[in-house]
């Protein structure tokens, strides 16, 4: 194989077996915010239903 200068070659000695977890902090915050919104809405509607009964 011709090794060309400037082009990175795959590391055949140390193949990547495990990928590092990407950061999901922002996703986690977004999911919890959405979840909190859904829970608050649910309880708001439920308390309206109970108060009208």
């Amino acid at each position, binding site marked *: 194989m011709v090794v060309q200068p400037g082009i990175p070659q795959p590391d055949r000695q140390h193949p990547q077996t495990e990928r590092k*977890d990407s950061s*999901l*902090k922002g*996703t*986690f915050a977004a*999911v*919890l915010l959405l*979840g909190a919104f*859904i*829970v608050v809405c*649910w309880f708001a509607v*439920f308390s309206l*239903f*109970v108060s*009208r*009964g």
Partner: protein
Amino acid sequence: MHLHRYEKMWLMFGGGALLLFVIILTVNAYAMGNMPPSHMQMIEPSKVDETPPFDKPGLRQIGENEYELVMTSFVFGYAPANVEIPAGATVHFIVTSKDVVHGFQIPGTNVNTMVLPGHISRVTQTFAEPGEYLILCNEYCGAGHHVMATKLIVADEGKE
């Protein structure tokens, strides 16, 4: 399967919330009797006027400040119309349709049910506040749908 730690946490959160909702609704329905406003009873829609209790529609007292209100709905109205009850009364509405699908809603309360021909809808409500309550059709039933309404008058007997 590999799951990110955060993914596990939000799946637990979502699953837990669903479980909580189902538990609250189950307790509310079976232990506290807050069932949806419907009923499994059937009726022959062409013979509503001959079938009890719809052969004698109207208000019937069944307890202390507790009433049964048997009503029929049709294009485009309800019978009997403008029923008067005392404040604080609990009313069990028993409604059926003589023709097409109608709605039966009292805005500001939990009374909101479909009225299907062939089915009898039951819904219970306590009217603590005196005033005029609108009963309206919220299922499009024909050209006169928008005028299909009546009133329930909750009289404040103490002030009369």
